[in-house]
């Protein structure tokens, strides 16, 4: 009887851990190894050059010395507390919205979010600003957390009340206008003195507020059965989309006043710019919403008609809510690009963030500090756009929770995209 066993191979080498990951993803073949080495060499060379510039050549004092200019422009220094109040109000209402939307989450302050807060606090402390402003910014972080907690608590105790959170934003917008412009007890500040990041945000938000209803109406008009309405809306969308934004801005600035009756007052520069931005975005938004409208199955309309709803109610209660939910990612993309488009306003004498950067560069004390200044405002734009993008994803999740098919369809698409890369 034989006592030999069939030879056994050793257990396979563990395919997990960092080394295995690196080997699998970066060095799987000689070609991939070559690519990895090459790209790492280029990237580290660039990083080295950059850090050498940032640490030795760059003169960063231009940033803290002009912090007020970057954020509030020529807003009178004695009234800057109003801008802080405005910022604080926005923080509280953002926190509450977050709390309300995330009420279903098991834990509001998950580990990731706590880490996020910690990073935010550290970044705040590293900012080269007055110590007093450190305190204010840190207290705003606390306000954000407190707002979120309040929002969640409100939803759990009084869900009826918390459903009105969009109204809170409308109220906040009105209050912001009051804080910016003054009047009713505050010292009036001419819109000519508004500037910097505050103006950038104001222009973007006002345009978004105006372009959303206009875009939805245009989308509905384009699908209307009434030929005149359809033609007009199609013509508007196509004409607006066919001309570059900068040309429209120049039109609003220089040519539009010629259409007004002689001697009549020309509307404020900011109002004209907001109107142009809003109408331009509305045309694009209309196409996004139209995409959403077309994705709603015909059966939805037919079913609501069978229930006896008239065309207006069918649109308002059945079709539009579903269409808008589908279009949220595209609409937010449009809003982000609108926010970035505000930089073009510096060409029509709106003193937004980019314009302030340029005027700082013209100060004889800071001549030639382009790298430092443009990098700084680039970071501001990135943070703002990234925040919008994160916010929109949360909104999307919160809104689609009650409407499974869309959520699942969206998830499938996402999965397919990930698999494809």
């Amino acid at each position, binding site marked *: 009887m034989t006592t030999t066993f069939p030879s056994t191979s050793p257990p396979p080498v563990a395919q997990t851990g960092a080394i295995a990951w690196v080997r699998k993803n970066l060095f799987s073949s000689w070609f991939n190894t070559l690519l990895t080495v090459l790209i790492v060499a280029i990237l580290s060379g660039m990083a080295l050059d950059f850090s050498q510039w940032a640490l030795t050549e760059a003169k960063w004092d231009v940033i803290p010395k002009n912090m007020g200019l970057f954020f509030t422009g020529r807003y009178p220094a004695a009234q800057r507390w109003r801008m802080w109040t405005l910022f604080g109000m926005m923080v509280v209402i953002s926190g509450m919205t977050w709390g309300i939307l995330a009420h279903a989450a098991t834990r509001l302050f998950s580990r990731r979010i706590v880490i996020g807060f910690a990073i935010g606090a550290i970044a705040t402390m590293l900012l080269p600003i007055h110590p007093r402003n450190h305190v204010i910014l840190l207290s705003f972080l606390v306000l954000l957390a407190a707002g979120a907690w309040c929002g969640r608590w409100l939803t759990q105790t009084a869900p009826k009340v918390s459903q009105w959170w969009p109204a809170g934003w409308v109220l906040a917008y009105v209050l912001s206008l009051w804080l910016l412009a003054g009047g009713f007890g505050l010292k009036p500040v001419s819109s000519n003195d508004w500037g910097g990041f505050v103006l950038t945000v104001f222009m973007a938000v006002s345009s978004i507020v105006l372009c959303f209803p206009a875009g939805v109406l245009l989308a509905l008009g384009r699908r209307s059965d009434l030929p005149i309405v359809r033609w007009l809306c199609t013509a508007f969308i196509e004409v607006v989309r066919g001309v570059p934004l900068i040309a429209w801005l120049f039109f609003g600035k220089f040519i539009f006043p010629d259409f007004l009756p002689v001697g009549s007052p020309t509307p404020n520069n900011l109002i004209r710019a907001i109107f142009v931005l809003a109408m331009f975005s509305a045309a694009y938004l209309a196409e996004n919403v139209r995409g959403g409208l077309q994705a709603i199955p015909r059966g939805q309309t037919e079913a609501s008609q069978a229930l006896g709803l008239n065309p207006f109610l069918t649109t308002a209660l059945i079709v539009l809510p579903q269409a808008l939910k589908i279009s949220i990612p595209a609409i937010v993309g449009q809003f982000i690009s609108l926010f970035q488009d505000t930089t073009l306003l510096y060409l029509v004498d709106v003193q937004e963030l980019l*314009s302030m950067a340029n005027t700082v560069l013209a100060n004889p004390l800071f001549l030639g500090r382009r790298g430092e200044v443009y990098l700084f405002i680039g970071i501001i734009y990135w943070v703002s756009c990234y925040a919008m993008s994160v916010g929109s994803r949360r909104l999307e999740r919160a809104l689609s929770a009650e409407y499974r098919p869309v959520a699942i369809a969206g998830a499938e698409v996402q999965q397919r995209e990930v698999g494809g890369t």
Partner: protein
Amino acid sequence: MRKWGLMLAAATLSVAALSACSPAPTDTGTAASPGASPAGGAAATSPSRLDTIKSRGKLICGVEGTIPGFSFVDSEGKYSGLDVDICRAVAAAIFDVSDPATIDDKIEYRNLDSTARFPALASGEVDMLSRNTTWTISRSAPGGNNFAFAPTTFYDGQGMLVKKSLNASKLEDLAGKSICVETGTTTELNLADQMRKAGVQYNEVKFQDSDGVYAALAEGRCDAATSDRSQLAARRTTLPNPDDYVLMDVVMSKEPLGPLTVNNDARLFQIIEWVTYGLMQAEEFEITQANVDQVLSSTQDPAVKRFLGAEGDLGTQLGVTNDFMVNVIKVVGNYGEIYDRNVGANSTLKLDRGLNNLWTKGGLMYSPPFR
């Protein structure tokens, strides 16, 4: 300008659609009455933008906003620069203000780039320009831009900043090289003229603003940059290696820079004109921001008394208060003070007075008599 014509045509076509599909926002303007002019003493009572300025309570002054030493916003959020001080001087005369701390309440500054400035002035968007604008015939002729230029506040000339390594001493040495230039300026046109005259082929690299020009020069995208010599001298000091660049000894053009307003508005124009002259005259009389009160109370010179409004009615004839020059000097000082503070000895730019000195000291600053 042709570009605008095309756009206007396109816009006119589209405006029908635009106004049909969206609510017209501001069609509620009432028919204005520009002829309503106040009973203004001895001053002419023809309709003028001056009335609009006074009823508005603010002078709208177009500046460049990004020229070191001439117009920019400082870290405190206040406009600053030589061009800006001219706006302040005019506002001090129009509104009878003598406090430098509150003069900016009477002024709205508008930043205008070189392509936007003329449409803005012509359309009434701004009352006057004080933004490094060269006085030329086509800009003042009725068939051209039709603007009225006040006296020059800064005599400049076009120069050429080149890399030292080129060893270029005359324009011919720049054959085949790339030259950076700001587009929409007389600089751009002069360069083409001068190079054609010299028979030199070159590559023009155009930029919308001056920052782009010097960034490109520093990055080596062009071998030379051309602009007004004052700007080149100031910007050279900010390049990463200033000693690698030299200001060539050629002066390619005359660039008299000064404030301007629309033509056919004598009442407004004459105030701008005589306030500017007054700044030069004040330097000639050696009246400064610091000593104006003392001079006013102690002087026995009838010319100075007339100038400061202690005698005669020169101011009233112009349509402002008699002591308008006292206000102007209290707010911004005399021309020499403005120059030194913003671009001269007391600034970081340290430009020579050169042609911008008084005529008594070998420069071109010369005011007609105040009498």
